[in-house]
């Protein structure tokens, strides 16, 4: 069955880190992000607001082939952990991995859940933040 194959192929990726993505936190990007979320706190001109790191690297990985399953994506949830403040000029390296993949069947049909985690490390090699997310195909 095709859907079983997709689930099995995605499950084989569990625990495998994706290639790291690095980016510098730019003042212009911070400003555009703060404007987009409608938060005018001047603190965010030099410091990243709580969810900003989702904008410097893709929040999910290995997901293209999951699109064989169902017809659309839903975001089920996110967890943001801040270890130290991220400031303009910081060079952040994001490394993501799939940590779980499972299928649930309910009254409205089947759903595919993909749980991923991303760790963000700064230019000094210190972890600054972690993100966990639940991507759902329906």
């Amino acid at each position: 069955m095709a859907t079983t194959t997709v689930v099995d192929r995605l499950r084989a990726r569990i625990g495998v880190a994706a290639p790291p993505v690095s980016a510098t936190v730019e003042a212009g990007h911070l400003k555009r992000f703060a404007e987009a979320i409608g938060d005018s706190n001047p603190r965010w001109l030099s410091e990243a607001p709580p969810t900003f790191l989702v904008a410097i690297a893709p929040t999910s990985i290995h997901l293209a082939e999951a699109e064989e399953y169902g017809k659309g994506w839903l975001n089920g949830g996110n967890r943001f952990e801040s270890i130290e403040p991220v400031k303009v000029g910081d060079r952040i390296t994001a490394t993501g991995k799939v940590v779980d993949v499972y299928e649930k069947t309910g009254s409205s049909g089947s759903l595919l859940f993909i749980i991923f985690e991303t760790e963000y490390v700064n230019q000094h090699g210190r972890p600054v933040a972690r993100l966990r997310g639940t991507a759902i195909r329906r």
Partner: protein
Amino acid sequence: MTLKAGDEIPELVKHPTTRQLVQYAGAQGDFYEIHYDQDFARSVALPGVILHGLLKAAFLGQLVTEWLGERGTLKAFEVSYRGIDQPGRPYRCRGRVTKVDGDQVELEVWGEDSAGNRTTVGTATVDVKG
């Protein structure tokens, strides 16, 4: 800051528009069409374009950081997206202290649609300066 379980923090009411969804798509780099293309959104059985879950998370982040100000740090926050939200309708962000343990304060946070449904629910952990 004298805080106790049960204290509600000041609410934050956001007024998202389709324009804001486009702005957010660009700022985050998430160009999934359900957030700005009405025909595409309907083709995947949505009533129209919907807010990014991560935009609603950002609103709840603002709720907590605005309340906290310089008095402390948001250490962790977790949200579940329970329902969809459409632009053109107010989105009401609320929170309540659930536990105070020394400098560590736990809150429940949630976002309500215009009918009062909690479409996003979560928790936040903050460290307040002693």
